[in-house]
Protein backbone atom coordinates (compact mmCIF):
# COMPACT_ATOMS: atom_id res chain seq x y z
CA UNK A 1 0.00 0.00 0.00
CA UNK A 2 1.51 3.28 -1.06
CA UNK A 3 1.48 6.27 1.26
CA UNK A 4 -1.07 9.01 0.72
CA UNK A 5 1.10 11.82 -0.64
CA UNK A 6 4.38 10.21 -1.73
CA UNK A 7 7.53 12.12 -2.62
CA UNK A 8 8.17 12.02 -6.35
CA UNK A 9 11.31 12.94 -8.27
CA UNK A 10 11.43 13.68 -11.99
CA UNK A 11 11.01 10.51 -14.02
CA UNK A 12 9.72 8.38 -11.13
CA UNK A 13 7.06 5.86 -11.94
CA UNK A 14 3.68 6.66 -10.42
CA UNK A 15 1.90 3.84 -8.64
CA UNK A 16 -1.28 3.21 -10.71
CA UNK A 17 -3.31 2.94 -7.48
CA UNK A 18 -2.61 6.66 -6.81
CA UNK A 19 -4.09 7.87 -10.09
CA UNK A 20 -7.71 8.88 -9.50
CA UNK A 21 -10.46 7.44 -11.66
CA UNK A 22 -13.86 8.89 -12.38
CA UNK A 23 -16.83 7.61 -14.36
CA UNK A 24 -17.45 10.73 -16.45
CA UNK A 25 -14.84 13.42 -15.77
CA UNK A 26 -11.60 13.23 -17.72
CA UNK A 27 -8.36 13.00 -15.73
CA UNK A 28 -6.74 16.42 -15.32
CA UNK A 29 -2.99 16.76 -14.89
CA UNK A 30 -1.81 19.74 -12.85
CA UNK A 31 1.64 21.30 -12.58
CA UNK A 32 4.67 19.06 -12.36
CA UNK A 33 3.33 16.18 -14.44
CA UNK A 34 3.57 15.28 -18.09
CA UNK A 35 1.85 12.72 -20.22
CA UNK A 36 4.10 10.58 -22.34
CA UNK A 37 2.05 8.98 -25.08
CA UNK A 38 0.54 6.45 -25.14
CA UNK A 39 -0.17 5.82 -21.48
CA UNK A 40 2.53 7.01 -19.13
CA UNK A 41 2.31 9.83 -16.59
CA UNK A 42 5.66 11.06 -15.29
CA UNK A 43 6.52 13.73 -12.73
CA UNK A 44 8.85 16.52 -13.88
CA UNK A 45 9.44 18.17 -10.50
CA UNK A 46 10.38 17.10 -7.00
CA UNK A 47 7.47 17.38 -4.59
CA UNK A 48 4.50 15.60 -3.09
CA UNK A 49 2.13 13.88 -5.49
CA UNK A 50 -1.42 14.89 -4.64
CA UNK A 51 -4.56 13.31 -6.06
CA UNK A 52 -7.89 15.14 -5.95
CA UNK A 53 -10.53 12.43 -6.35
CA UNK A 54 -13.48 14.85 -6.40
CA UNK A 55 -12.09 16.84 -9.34
CA UNK A 56 -10.36 13.80 -10.83
CA UNK A 57 -7.08 15.71 -10.86
CA UNK A 58 -3.46 14.86 -10.13
CA UNK A 59 -0.66 17.34 -9.43
CA UNK A 60 2.70 17.82 -7.74
CA UNK A 61 2.79 20.20 -4.77
CA UNK A 62 6.14 21.99 -4.53
CA UNK A 63 7.70 25.29 -3.57
CA UNK A 64 10.51 27.23 -5.13
CA UNK A 65 11.85 28.18 -8.48
CA UNK A 66 10.89 31.01 -10.75
CA UNK A 67 7.32 32.00 -11.56
CA UNK A 68 6.16 30.61 -14.89
CA UNK A 69 3.05 32.47 -16.16
CA UNK A 70 -0.12 30.48 -16.64
CA UNK A 71 -3.58 31.71 -17.70
CA UNK A 72 -5.94 33.29 -15.11
CA UNK A 73 -3.21 33.74 -12.47
CA UNK A 74 -3.36 37.01 -10.53
CA UNK A 75 -0.01 38.80 -10.61
CA UNK A 76 1.59 42.06 -9.53
CA UNK A 77 3.67 43.62 -12.29
CA UNK A 78 5.72 46.74 -12.73
CA UNK A 79 5.29 48.90 -15.84
CA UNK A 80 8.64 49.25 -17.59
CA UNK A 81 7.53 51.31 -20.60
CA UNK A 82 4.55 52.27 -22.65
CA UNK A 83 4.11 51.67 -26.38
CA UNK A 84 1.47 53.04 -28.80
CA UNK A 85 -1.38 50.92 -27.48
CA UNK A 86 0.03 48.77 -24.67
CA UNK A 87 2.16 48.79 -21.56
CA UNK A 88 5.15 46.48 -21.12
CA UNK A 89 4.95 44.98 -17.64
CA UNK A 90 7.66 43.10 -15.80
CA UNK A 91 6.51 40.11 -13.73
CA UNK A 92 9.83 38.57 -12.64
CA UNK A 93 13.35 39.92 -13.07
CA UNK A 94 15.26 38.96 -16.24
CA UNK A 95 12.25 37.57 -18.07
CA UNK A 96 10.61 38.98 -21.21
CA UNK A 97 7.99 41.63 -20.46
CA UNK A 98 4.29 40.83 -20.44
CA UNK A 99 2.01 43.11 -22.43
CA UNK A 100 -1.00 44.93 -20.98
CA UNK A 101 -3.16 46.69 -23.60
CA UNK A 102 -4.21 50.28 -22.78
CA UNK A 103 -7.83 49.27 -23.29
CA UNK A 104 -7.75 46.33 -20.87
CA UNK A 105 -8.90 48.48 -17.92
CA UNK A 106 -12.39 49.03 -16.58
CA UNK A 107 -14.26 51.59 -18.64
CA UNK A 108 -11.21 52.45 -20.74
CA UNK A 109 -11.69 54.06 -24.12
CA UNK A 110 -9.20 55.59 -26.50
CA UNK A 111 -9.75 58.98 -24.83
CA UNK A 112 -10.04 57.94 -21.18
CA UNK A 113 -7.56 55.39 -20.00
CA UNK A 114 -5.35 55.14 -16.91
CA UNK A 115 -2.04 56.90 -17.42
CA UNK A 116 0.64 54.68 -15.90
CA UNK A 117 4.13 56.08 -15.46
CA UNK A 118 7.21 53.88 -15.77
CA UNK A 119 7.65 51.99 -12.52
CA UNK A 120 3.94 52.00 -11.64
CA UNK A 121 2.47 48.82 -10.17
CA UNK A 122 -0.51 46.99 -11.59
CA UNK A 123 -2.56 44.11 -10.23
CA UNK A 124 -3.57 42.06 -13.25
CA UNK A 125 -4.83 38.71 -14.46
CA UNK A 126 -2.90 36.72 -17.04
CA UNK A 127 -5.18 36.38 -20.06
CA UNK A 128 -2.82 34.52 -22.34
CA UNK A 129 0.30 32.52 -21.63
CA UNK A 130 2.01 29.93 -23.72
CA UNK A 131 5.58 28.98 -24.19
CA UNK A 132 6.00 30.47 -27.64
CA UNK A 133 4.64 33.95 -26.86
CA UNK A 134 5.18 36.61 -24.24
CA UNK A 135 2.34 36.62 -21.67
CA UNK A 136 -0.58 39.02 -21.99
CA UNK A 137 -2.36 40.68 -19.08
CA UNK A 138 -5.76 42.25 -18.42
CA UNK A 139 -7.15 44.39 -15.61
CA UNK A 140 -10.80 43.84 -16.45
CA UNK A 141 -13.06 40.83 -16.59
CA UNK A 142 -13.95 40.14 -20.21
CA UNK A 143 -17.37 38.73 -19.29
CA UNK A 144 -18.62 41.47 -16.95
CA UNK A 145 -16.53 44.46 -18.02
CA UNK A 146 -15.80 45.20 -14.33
CA UNK A 147 -12.33 45.51 -12.82
CA UNK A 148 -13.06 43.10 -9.94
CA UNK A 149 -10.30 44.59 -7.80
CA UNK A 150 -7.71 44.65 -10.55
CA UNK A 151 -5.98 47.78 -11.79
CA UNK A 152 -3.19 50.19 -10.85
CA UNK A 153 -1.84 49.92 -7.30
CA UNK A 154 -1.10 53.36 -5.85
CA UNK A 155 0.92 53.93 -2.70
CA UNK A 156 1.95 51.08 -0.45
CA UNK A 157 4.93 48.81 -0.79
CA UNK A 158 5.74 45.47 -2.44
CA UNK A 159 7.38 42.59 -0.57
CA UNK A 160 8.88 39.51 -2.19
CA UNK A 161 7.67 36.16 -0.87
CA UNK A 162 8.12 32.56 -2.01
CA UNK A 163 5.78 31.17 -4.66
CA UNK A 164 4.47 28.66 -2.13
CA UNK A 165 3.37 31.35 0.33
CA UNK A 166 1.75 33.36 -2.48
CA UNK A 167 -0.23 30.27 -3.43
CA UNK A 168 -1.31 29.72 0.17
CA UNK A 169 -2.37 33.37 0.60
CA UNK A 170 -4.49 33.15 -2.55
CA UNK A 171 -6.35 30.05 -1.36
CA UNK A 172 -10.06 30.55 -0.66
CA UNK A 173 -9.57 29.33 2.91
CA UNK A 174 -5.98 30.41 3.49
CA UNK A 175 -6.22 29.99 7.28
CA UNK A 176 -7.66 26.47 7.37
CA UNK A 177 -6.05 24.94 4.30
CA UNK A 178 -3.02 27.17 3.67
CA UNK A 179 -2.19 27.65 7.38
CA UNK A 180 -1.40 31.36 7.04
CA UNK A 181 -3.16 33.47 9.62
CA UNK A 182 -0.82 36.47 9.99
CA UNK A 183 -2.99 38.86 7.99
CA UNK A 184 -6.16 37.95 9.91
CA UNK A 185 -4.32 38.16 13.22
CA UNK A 186 -2.83 41.56 12.40
CA UNK A 187 -6.29 42.78 11.38
CA UNK A 188 -7.73 41.48 14.65
CA UNK A 189 -5.10 43.53 16.53
CA UNK A 190 -6.67 46.66 15.11
CA UNK A 191 -4.33 47.44 12.22
CA UNK A 192 -6.01 48.83 9.11
CA UNK A 193 -4.33 47.83 5.85
CA UNK A 194 -5.07 46.43 2.41
CA UNK A 195 -3.10 43.79 0.53
CA UNK A 196 -2.88 42.34 -2.95
CA UNK A 197 -1.16 39.00 -3.51
CA UNK A 198 0.50 38.21 -6.83
CA UNK A 199 1.03 34.59 -7.79
CA UNK A 200 4.49 35.66 -9.02
CA UNK A 201 5.71 35.87 -5.40
CA UNK A 202 4.84 39.46 -4.60
CA UNK A 203 2.63 41.03 -1.94
CA UNK A 204 1.55 44.65 -2.04
CA UNK A 205 0.65 46.21 1.30
CA UNK A 206 -0.93 49.63 1.73
CA UNK A 207 -2.08 51.52 4.79
CA UNK A 208 -2.61 55.01 6.16
CA UNK A 209 0.45 54.65 8.38
CA UNK A 210 3.86 53.61 7.09
CA UNK A 211 4.49 51.73 10.36
CA UNK A 212 1.62 49.37 9.63
CA UNK A 213 2.90 48.66 6.12
CA UNK A 214 6.31 47.69 7.47
CA UNK A 215 4.89 45.54 10.25
CA UNK A 216 2.61 43.63 7.87
CA UNK A 217 5.43 43.14 5.37
CA UNK A 218 7.85 41.95 8.02
CA UNK A 219 5.29 39.54 9.45
CA UNK A 220 4.76 37.99 6.02
CA UNK A 221 8.48 37.77 5.22
CA UNK A 222 9.25 36.19 8.57
CA UNK A 223 6.40 33.69 8.24
CA UNK A 224 7.83 32.72 4.88
CA UNK A 225 11.52 32.51 5.75
CA UNK A 226 11.15 30.78 9.12
CA UNK A 227 8.35 28.47 7.93
CA UNK A 228 6.10 29.36 10.86
CA UNK A 229 2.99 27.41 11.81
CA UNK A 230 -0.24 29.07 12.94
CA UNK A 231 0.76 29.04 16.64
CA UNK A 232 4.14 30.58 15.93
CA UNK A 233 2.48 33.17 13.69
CA UNK A 234 0.33 34.21 16.68
CA UNK A 235 3.46 34.73 18.78
CA UNK A 236 5.15 36.68 15.98
CA UNK A 237 2.15 38.99 15.59
CA UNK A 238 2.03 39.67 19.34
CA UNK A 239 5.76 40.44 19.35
CA UNK A 240 5.51 42.81 16.38
CA UNK A 241 2.49 44.62 17.82
CA UNK A 242 4.30 45.08 21.13
CA UNK A 243 7.36 46.50 19.39
CA UNK A 244 5.21 48.84 17.33
CA UNK A 245 3.41 50.41 20.29
Amino acid at each position, binding site marked *: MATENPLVLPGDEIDPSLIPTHKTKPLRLGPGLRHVPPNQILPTLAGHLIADHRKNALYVEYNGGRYIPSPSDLVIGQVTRSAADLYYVNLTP*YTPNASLPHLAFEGATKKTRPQLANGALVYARISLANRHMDPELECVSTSTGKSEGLGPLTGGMVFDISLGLARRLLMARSRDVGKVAVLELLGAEGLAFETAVGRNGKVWVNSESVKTVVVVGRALKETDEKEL*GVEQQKKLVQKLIKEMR
Partner: protein
Amino acid sequence: MTTKREPEAALSVLPKSDGSARYSYAGYTVTASVNGPIEAQRRDEHAYEAHVDVIVRPAAGVGGTRERHLETILQASLIQLILVKNFPRSLIQIVLQVEASPENDYVNTKLMQASLNSAVIPALLQTAVLALLSAAIPMRATATSAIVAVMTQDGASRLVAHPSPREIEAAQSVHVLAFTSQDGLLLAESEGDFTVKEWDDVYDTAKKICCKSGATKGEGIEMVLDEQEDSGPDMRQFLRSALETKVAADLHWK
Protein backbone atom coordinates in the same frame (compact mmCIF):
# COMPACT_ATOMS: atom_id res chain seq x y z
CA MET B 1 40.10 8.41 4.30
CA THR B 2 38.35 11.15 2.44
CA THR B 3 37.16 9.06 -0.49
CA LYS B 4 34.99 6.67 1.51
CA ARG B 5 33.10 9.42 3.32
CA GLU B 6 29.32 9.75 3.00
CA PRO B 7 28.13 12.41 0.57
CA GLU B 8 26.54 15.55 2.00
CA ALA B 9 24.15 17.98 0.38
CA ALA B 10 22.27 21.15 1.26
CA LEU B 11 19.60 22.63 -0.99
CA SER B 12 18.53 26.25 -1.57
CA VAL B 13 21.61 27.66 0.17
CA LEU B 14 21.77 30.89 -1.86
CA PRO B 15 18.93 33.33 -1.13
CA LYS B 16 18.95 35.31 -4.39
CA SER B 17 19.05 32.57 -7.00
CA ASP B 18 16.08 30.54 -8.21
CA GLY B 19 17.67 27.32 -7.01
CA SER B 20 20.95 26.29 -5.49
CA ALA B 21 22.73 23.37 -3.86
CA ARG B 22 25.95 22.60 -2.09
CA TYR B 23 27.31 19.07 -2.38
CA SER B 24 30.43 17.52 -0.97
CA TYR B 25 31.85 14.07 -1.53
CA ALA B 26 35.26 12.47 -1.92
CA GLY B 27 37.08 15.65 -1.00
CA TYR B 28 35.21 17.84 -3.48
CA THR B 29 32.83 20.57 -2.40
CA VAL B 30 30.79 22.24 -5.13
CA THR B 31 28.16 24.96 -4.88
CA ALA B 32 25.76 25.46 -7.76
CA SER B 33 23.23 28.15 -8.53
CA VAL B 34 20.49 27.81 -11.13
CA ASN B 35 18.54 30.68 -12.63
CA GLY B 36 15.87 30.16 -15.17
CA PRO B 37 13.96 30.23 -17.33
CA ILE B 38 15.13 33.78 -18.04
CA GLU B 39 15.51 35.89 -21.15
CA ALA B 40 18.30 34.62 -23.40
CA GLN B 41 20.64 36.88 -25.30
CA ARG B 42 19.70 37.13 -28.94
CA ARG B 43 22.77 35.15 -30.07
CA ASP B 44 22.02 32.26 -27.62
CA GLU B 45 18.34 32.04 -28.47
CA HIS B 46 16.97 28.79 -29.93
CA ALA B 47 13.56 29.01 -31.59
CA TYR B 48 12.29 25.73 -30.16
CA GLU B 49 14.21 25.02 -26.98
CA ALA B 50 15.88 26.59 -23.98
CA HIS B 51 19.57 27.34 -24.05
CA VAL B 52 21.34 25.66 -21.14
CA ASP B 53 24.38 27.64 -20.07
CA VAL B 54 26.82 25.81 -17.79
CA ILE B 55 29.63 27.77 -16.17
CA VAL B 56 32.34 25.96 -14.18
CA ARG B 57 34.56 27.99 -11.86
CA PRO B 58 37.64 26.32 -10.40
CA ALA B 59 38.60 26.41 -6.72
CA ALA B 60 41.42 28.85 -7.42
CA GLY B 61 41.98 31.29 -10.23
CA VAL B 62 39.87 31.86 -13.30
CA GLY B 63 38.58 29.12 -15.58
CA GLY B 64 40.54 28.10 -18.64
CA THR B 65 40.37 25.55 -21.41
CA ARG B 66 39.93 22.72 -18.92
CA GLU B 67 36.82 24.34 -17.45
CA ARG B 68 35.40 25.03 -20.92
CA HIS B 69 35.84 21.32 -21.71
CA LEU B 70 34.04 20.32 -18.51
CA GLU B 71 31.26 22.75 -19.39
CA THR B 72 30.66 21.18 -22.79
CA ILE B 73 30.56 17.68 -21.27
CA LEU B 74 28.09 18.73 -18.56
CA GLN B 75 25.97 20.81 -20.92
CA ALA B 76 25.51 17.87 -23.29
CA SER B 77 24.37 15.67 -20.39
CA LEU B 78 22.10 18.23 -18.75
CA ILE B 79 20.13 19.10 -21.89
CA GLN B 80 19.16 15.43 -22.00
CA LEU B 81 17.68 15.75 -18.50
CA ILE B 82 16.01 19.17 -18.68
CA LEU B 83 12.79 19.46 -20.67
CA VAL B 84 14.29 22.18 -22.86
CA LYS B 85 11.36 22.18 -25.30
CA ASN B 86 9.13 23.60 -22.54
CA PHE B 87 10.92 26.95 -22.59
CA PRO B 88 11.71 28.06 -26.14
CA ARG B 89 13.83 31.21 -26.59
CA SER B 90 14.84 31.24 -22.93
CA LEU B 91 17.98 30.58 -20.94
CA ILE B 92 18.67 28.26 -18.03
CA GLN B 93 21.90 29.27 -16.38
CA ILE B 94 23.84 26.87 -14.16
CA VAL B 95 26.91 28.16 -12.36
CA LEU B 96 29.11 25.57 -10.63
CA GLN B 97 31.72 26.86 -8.22
CA VAL B 98 34.27 24.29 -7.04
CA GLU B 99 35.01 25.25 -3.45
CA ALA B 100 37.40 22.51 -2.43
CA SER B 101 39.17 19.70 -4.23
CA PRO B 102 41.23 16.92 -2.68
CA GLU B 103 44.93 17.58 -2.44
CA ASN B 104 47.39 15.21 -3.99
CA ASP B 105 50.59 15.63 -2.03
CA TYR B 106 52.66 13.80 -4.61
CA VAL B 107 51.87 15.92 -7.64
CA ASN B 108 52.02 19.61 -8.22
CA THR B 109 48.49 20.21 -9.59
CA LYS B 110 49.54 23.32 -11.50
CA LEU B 111 51.53 21.15 -13.90
CA MET B 112 48.60 18.95 -14.98
CA GLN B 113 46.53 21.83 -16.35
CA ALA B 114 46.36 20.29 -19.80
CA SER B 115 44.72 16.98 -18.90
CA LEU B 116 41.02 16.42 -18.28
CA ASN B 117 40.13 16.51 -14.64
CA SER B 118 37.64 13.63 -14.75
CA ALA B 119 37.45 13.14 -10.98
CA VAL B 120 35.50 16.35 -10.55
CA ILE B 121 32.76 15.48 -13.09
CA PRO B 122 30.61 13.31 -10.77
CA ALA B 123 30.59 16.04 -8.12
CA LEU B 124 29.73 18.73 -10.69
CA LEU B 125 26.95 16.68 -12.26
CA GLN B 126 25.45 15.70 -8.92
CA THR B 127 25.45 19.31 -7.70
CA ALA B 128 23.90 20.53 -10.94
CA VAL B 129 21.07 17.98 -10.67
CA LEU B 130 20.38 18.94 -7.05
CA ALA B 131 20.35 22.65 -7.91
CA LEU B 132 18.01 22.05 -10.87
CA LEU B 133 15.64 20.16 -8.59
CA SER B 134 15.80 23.02 -6.09
CA ALA B 135 14.98 25.51 -8.87
CA ALA B 136 11.93 23.42 -9.88
CA ILE B 137 13.09 23.22 -13.49
CA PRO B 138 11.00 20.54 -15.24
CA MET B 139 13.15 17.50 -15.94
CA ARG B 140 12.80 14.17 -17.67
CA ALA B 141 14.69 12.26 -15.01
CA THR B 142 17.32 12.66 -12.33
CA ALA B 143 20.85 11.35 -12.70
CA THR B 144 23.58 9.74 -10.63
CA SER B 145 27.23 9.51 -11.55
CA ALA B 146 30.28 7.44 -10.65
CA ILE B 147 33.99 7.29 -11.39
CA VAL B 148 35.84 4.01 -11.82
CA ALA B 149 39.58 3.53 -12.26
CA VAL B 150 41.26 0.48 -13.79
CA MET B 151 44.44 -0.33 -11.87
CA THR B 152 47.05 -2.79 -13.10
CA GLN B 153 48.88 -4.79 -10.46
CA ASP B 154 51.28 -7.62 -11.37
CA GLY B 155 49.69 -8.03 -14.80
CA ALA B 156 46.13 -8.35 -13.44
CA SER B 157 43.70 -5.45 -13.75
CA ARG B 158 41.51 -4.39 -10.85
CA LEU B 159 38.59 -1.96 -10.74
CA VAL B 160 38.49 0.77 -8.12
CA ALA B 161 35.26 2.71 -7.61
CA HIS B 162 35.55 6.25 -6.25
CA PRO B 163 39.36 6.29 -6.48
CA SER B 164 41.51 8.75 -4.57
CA PRO B 165 43.63 11.31 -6.47
CA ARG B 166 46.67 9.10 -5.83
CA GLU B 167 44.93 6.08 -7.35
CA ILE B 168 43.80 8.11 -10.37
CA GLU B 169 47.39 9.15 -10.89
CA ALA B 170 48.55 5.53 -10.91
CA ALA B 171 45.59 4.10 -12.84
CA GLN B 172 45.81 2.58 -16.32
CA SER B 173 42.55 4.25 -17.28
CA VAL B 174 39.84 6.34 -15.61
CA HIS B 175 36.17 6.27 -16.57
CA VAL B 176 33.33 8.58 -15.60
CA LEU B 177 29.82 7.29 -16.19
CA ALA B 178 26.42 8.73 -15.38
CA PHE B 179 23.03 7.06 -15.48
CA THR B 180 19.53 8.55 -15.48
CA SER B 181 16.97 7.41 -12.95
CA GLN B 182 15.47 5.24 -15.73
CA ASP B 183 18.79 3.33 -15.91
CA GLY B 184 19.82 4.88 -19.22
CA LEU B 185 23.47 5.70 -19.87
CA LEU B 186 23.83 9.48 -19.83
CA LEU B 187 27.55 10.17 -19.90
CA ALA B 188 30.67 8.12 -20.58
CA GLU B 189 34.07 9.78 -20.52
CA SER B 190 37.22 7.67 -20.53
CA GLU B 191 40.88 8.49 -20.27
CA GLY B 192 43.87 6.15 -20.69
CA ASP B 193 44.49 2.71 -22.23
CA PHE B 194 41.80 0.07 -21.91
CA THR B 195 40.26 -2.84 -23.77
CA VAL B 196 36.61 -3.33 -24.69
CA LYS B 197 36.38 -6.06 -22.06
CA GLU B 198 37.65 -3.67 -19.40
CA TRP B 199 35.17 -1.01 -20.46
CA ASP B 200 32.32 -3.53 -20.20
CA ASP B 201 33.41 -4.39 -16.65
CA VAL B 202 33.63 -0.70 -15.81
CA TYR B 203 30.13 -0.20 -17.22
CA ASP B 204 28.71 -2.99 -15.05
CA THR B 205 30.44 -1.67 -11.93
CA ALA B 206 29.33 1.91 -12.54
CA LYS B 207 25.78 0.81 -13.28
CA LYS B 208 25.71 -1.13 -10.02
CA ILE B 209 26.79 1.99 -8.11
CA CYS B 210 24.48 4.41 -9.88
CA CYS B 211 21.38 2.29 -10.34
CA LYS B 212 21.08 0.24 -7.20
CA SER B 213 18.00 1.38 -5.38
CA GLY B 214 16.93 0.96 -1.79
CA ALA B 215 14.57 -1.87 -2.75
CA THR B 216 17.24 -4.35 -3.88
CA LYS B 217 19.14 -3.93 -0.64
CA GLY B 218 16.75 -6.08 1.39
CA GLU B 219 17.84 -9.34 -0.23
CA GLY B 220 20.38 -10.40 2.32
CA ILE B 221 22.59 -8.91 4.97
CA GLU B 222 25.75 -10.40 3.52
CA MET B 223 25.03 -8.95 0.11
CA VAL B 224 24.50 -5.51 1.59
CA LEU B 225 27.82 -5.66 3.41
CA ASP B 226 29.49 -6.81 0.24
CA GLU B 227 28.14 -3.99 -1.86
CA GLN B 228 28.94 -1.28 0.62
CA GLU B 229 32.51 -2.38 0.79
CA ASP B 230 33.47 -1.66 -2.78
CA SER B 231 30.92 0.63 -4.31
CA GLY B 232 30.37 3.34 -1.73
CA PRO B 233 27.07 4.96 -0.83
CA ASP B 234 23.75 4.45 -2.55
CA MET B 235 23.62 7.60 -4.69
CA ARG B 236 19.98 7.29 -5.67
CA GLN B 237 18.86 6.85 -2.11
CA PHE B 238 21.03 9.81 -1.16
CA LEU B 239 19.41 12.03 -3.80
CA ARG B 240 15.97 11.01 -2.62
CA SER B 241 16.68 11.65 1.06
CA ALA B 242 18.23 15.05 0.28
CA LEU B 243 15.07 16.04 -1.60
CA GLU B 244 12.83 14.54 1.07
CA THR B 245 14.23 16.95 3.66
CA LYS B 246 13.81 19.92 1.34
CA VAL B 247 10.27 19.07 0.24
CA ALA B 248 9.18 18.37 3.82
CA ALA B 249 10.44 21.81 4.87
CA ASP B 250 8.76 23.51 1.89
CA LEU B 251 5.44 21.84 2.50
CA HIS B 252 5.45 22.04 6.31
CA TRP B 253 1.97 23.58 6.20
CA LYS B 254 0.38 20.57 4.49
